[in-house]
């Protein structure tokens, strides 16, 4: 598993003074205007000076140095790395959509607005919420919108003391970070040995300062919170609201709806459940859905339908809105991709997502458990993902989760998520997704079987892995200590 491009110079090193990709030079217009001298740039930026071929070759070769869904099984827990259908990209990039200015008249954008409105409606249906805004640009911004709405709700009721957000210790880092961004205090509560919320701890945390709780269900421990209704009742009785982190929606799509479990607000990661691409780090889309009582607070804009016409809802429509979260209307092109995906899956396809994601995860879990890998929550069903703990491997052979992860790369599989959730020692969080086929799951099992053998017989294969990628293990400490964050010309 080596990359054709084992090394590629930094593009600045390919650069030569005065070289240009000349076909890209736009025609000069007659010069009538000038920038006054004091405002004019004094020194040209040193951008790369390369030919078009050099640029194309460079970035093509760089691309080959990546693992991706399109090239490898990518069982990264909590990330839902499923096939991103090409049609979604193709249709979202139709010129009529791409060329549309965000401030162009609504009358000339009914095609796009229609898609977005229907997307809002479909998301309401699958989450069981009463209203949806597509504005948030990723999961974390959806969380932000959600917590901001919770605060606005309490404030609007004059309930001004509620500034605490409860999060289970297993929660994703964005949950507590979001609470802080919203000016809330974070109260972490533990989970019990089965992965469920510790109800006593919850009771102890609840009180007149409780603004709400952020949960995902199934949790990031990969198991379904069975007492969700009790949790709901406890929180609601204490005057708090329930926030659903939709990163795990893939596990339950069409099977159980956050709204029906009693959640008041939810964000969805359209780039997970609805398969818009991750793009090497983004963009995403973090649409939010709310129960009736939070609807007045939704972030703007969102699409309204009046008669046969669609228009953007603005401040005058939602005077209590928490406001805008972006200059325009969020990641429209991502939302279009999600729309196409949902239309291809259709009503029938929704529940299949959860069913086959769950089937794949439970199959992997069963196979790996049979090999001797230790499930973190034995006796529990896997949801769309599950956790393996390698603490025994570490104890017996000093092999870490990191070693196993890096070695898997050599076998041509992306690594599962490692060291998250933090409370499970030496953990691998494995999420195969529904779009992977049995043969490839079996391939992953074989690789992990082989790795177990290597751990016993030739542990350096693991501890020094990866062996066949463009680089060996990287020195993260040096990266942070001797900061080299940008190219500089050789001295």
């Amino acid at each position, binding site marked *: 598993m080596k990359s054709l491009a084992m090394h590629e110079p930094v593009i600045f090193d390919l650069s030569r003074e005065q070289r240009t990709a000349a076909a890209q030079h736009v025609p000069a217009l007659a010069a009538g205007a000038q920038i006054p001298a004091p405002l004019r740039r004094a020194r040209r930026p040193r951008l790369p000076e390369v030919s078009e071929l050099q640029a194309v070759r460079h970035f093509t070769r760089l691309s080959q140095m990546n693992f991706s869904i399109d090239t490898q099984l990518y069982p990264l827990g909590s990330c839902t790395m499923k096939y991103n259908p090409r049609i979604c990209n193709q249709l979202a990039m139709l010129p009529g959509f791409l060329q549309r200015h965000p401030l162009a008249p609504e009358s000339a954008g009914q095609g796009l607005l229609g898609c977005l409105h229907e997307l809002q409606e479909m998301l309401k249906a699958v989450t069981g919420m009463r209203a949806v805004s597509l504005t948030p640009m990723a999961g974390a911004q959806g969380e932000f919108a959600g917590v901001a709405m919770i605060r606005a709700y309490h404030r609007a009721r004059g309930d001004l003391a509620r500034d605490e957000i409860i999060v289970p210790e297993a929660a994703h880092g964005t949950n507590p970070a979001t609470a802080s961004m919203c000016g809330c205090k974070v109260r972490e509560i533990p989970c019990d040995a089965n992965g469920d919320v510790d109800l006593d701890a919850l009771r102890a945390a609840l009180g007149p300062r409780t603004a709400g709780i952020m949960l995902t269900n199934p949790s990031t421990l990969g198991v379904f919170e069975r007492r969700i209704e009790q949790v709901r009742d406890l929180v609601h009785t204490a005057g708090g609201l329930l926030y659903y982190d939709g990163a795990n929606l893939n596990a339950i799509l069409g099977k159980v709806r956050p709204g029906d479990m009693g959640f008041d607000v939810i964000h969805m990661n359209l780039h997970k459940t609805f398969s818009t691409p991750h793009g090497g780090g983004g963009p995403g889309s973090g649409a939010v859905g709310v129960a009736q009582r939070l609807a007045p607070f939704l972030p703007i804009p969102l699409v309204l339908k009046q008669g046969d016409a669609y228009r953007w809802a603005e401040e005058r429509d939602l005077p209590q809105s928490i406001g805008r979260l972006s200059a325009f209307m969020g990641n429209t*092109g991502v939302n279009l991709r999600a729309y196409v995906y949902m239309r291809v899956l259709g009503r029938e396809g929704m529940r299949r997502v959860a069913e086959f994601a769950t089937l794949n995860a439970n*199959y992997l879990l069963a196979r790996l458990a049979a090999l001797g890998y230790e499930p973190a929550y034995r006796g529990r069903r896997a949801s769309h993902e599950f956790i393996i703990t390698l603490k025994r491997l570490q104890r017996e052979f000093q092999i870490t989760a990191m070693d196993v992860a890096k070695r898997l790369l050599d076998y041509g599989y992306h690594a599962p998520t490692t060291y998250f959730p933090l409370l499970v020692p030496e953990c691998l969080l494995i999420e195969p997704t529904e779009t992977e086929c049995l043969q490839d799951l079996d391939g992953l099992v074989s690789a992990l079987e082989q790795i177990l053998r290597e751990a016993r017989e030739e542990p350096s294969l693991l501890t020094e892995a990866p062996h066949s*990628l463009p*680089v060996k293990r990287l020195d993260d400490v040096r990266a942070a200590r001797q900061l080299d964050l940008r190219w500089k010309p050789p001295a």
Partner: protein
Amino acid sequence: MPYIPHTADDIAGMLRAIGAGSIEELFDEIPAHLKTGALEAVPAALSELEVARLMNQRAAADAGALNFIGAGAYEHYIPAPVWAIATRGEFYSAYTPYQAEASQGTLQLIYEYQSMMAELTAMDVSNASLYDGASALAESCLMAVRANRNVDSLRILVPRTVNPTYLHVVRSIAGNQGLCFDTVDYDRRRGVITLDALAAAAPGATALVIQQPNFFGNLEDVGALTDWAHARGMLVIAVVNPTSLALLEAPGRWGTAGADIVCGEGQPLGCPLSGGGPYFGFMTTRQAHVRQMPGRIVGRTVDASGRPGFTLTLQAREQHIRRGKATSNICTNQGLLVTAASVYLSLMGAAGLERVADACLQANHALTQALCDLPGVRLAFDAPRFHESALLLDRPVAPVLARLAQRGVFGGWDLSAQYPELGHALLVCATETKSAEDLARCAAELRGALETAR
């Protein structure tokens, strides 16, 4: 089953391995009464052929107008290689590069992007992107509060020449942490901030935001403003249009010491207008503030055999490590757009970007002249501009724009809601995508609209 590869045999064998009788059984931990029924509100499945037909119709319905709106999103020519590369599966379908060894492509690209943005803004370091320009400004304000060691205040000065929507977003986001924003009025004749107006603001703010070119398209006297703020212990947050930086002085060199934090909308660098997104926010800063910066950062390091390689670094700032104490909650950013921007900037180089910027300057100049030659149209301000101009009409703007839209021309952005004091003000923009004929058509249609509506 679209995108699901399981055959009946597969399913049976897998259930056997699990020891379950049915797929439904795998959901037995979910309380039965909570289970979802049929999702009537979701339409039945369409084949790819059918959804393509539908979307082609809808996209065609929206297509075809000639656009002269800017106001924060700009129509630029995007070279063909940009999206041919950005949509390669290895970039398009990869995750955040947490497994560095398996993500050197994305990591090196981000490192190159950081280098380009640092160069363009003449700052030391860049992050790997934020959501968009407006939210980048919100993050910049939060960062300024953390970074300013001189002043302990949650107040930030925001001139009214800053994009009003940005101010709205900044309030929505940063307001939750108690930041407040004092607006500073602009000079009515020149459409820029003056030191007098700043002097009138309450003292003791943490930072001053300067947008260049400002929302009217006018050029601020950034050097004087920067020095003014620094003299009062404030940090300077620059909001800049990256294309304009080919011609305009880089924020890192504004005044004596340069801006402290630079942010803005990256969309002009290779991102299609796409109805408002996805775009990307960029942010650069001084080395001294790097640990206060939100968002991912890539560093160059060496691998176990001493060869250079790239990895995410300074992760202790981030939510997945620092949780509630992180510099921001951002996780997923706008990576694919950064990919596009990196290809775009590589193809342009400084010389190419200069030509784009100059063509914008000239096109807007020519457009403004042509429009101001019409009776009832004049310039709102007397100031140097980049690629937008605020115009004043002799009558309400909305019906004129509506008429133009019917004729297939998006004639600009109506400023009257955001700046009622200006009267019938219209913000027009022309970039390098507009030919002389396009400009002439705009003028002719506006003439027609003004004549009919008279």
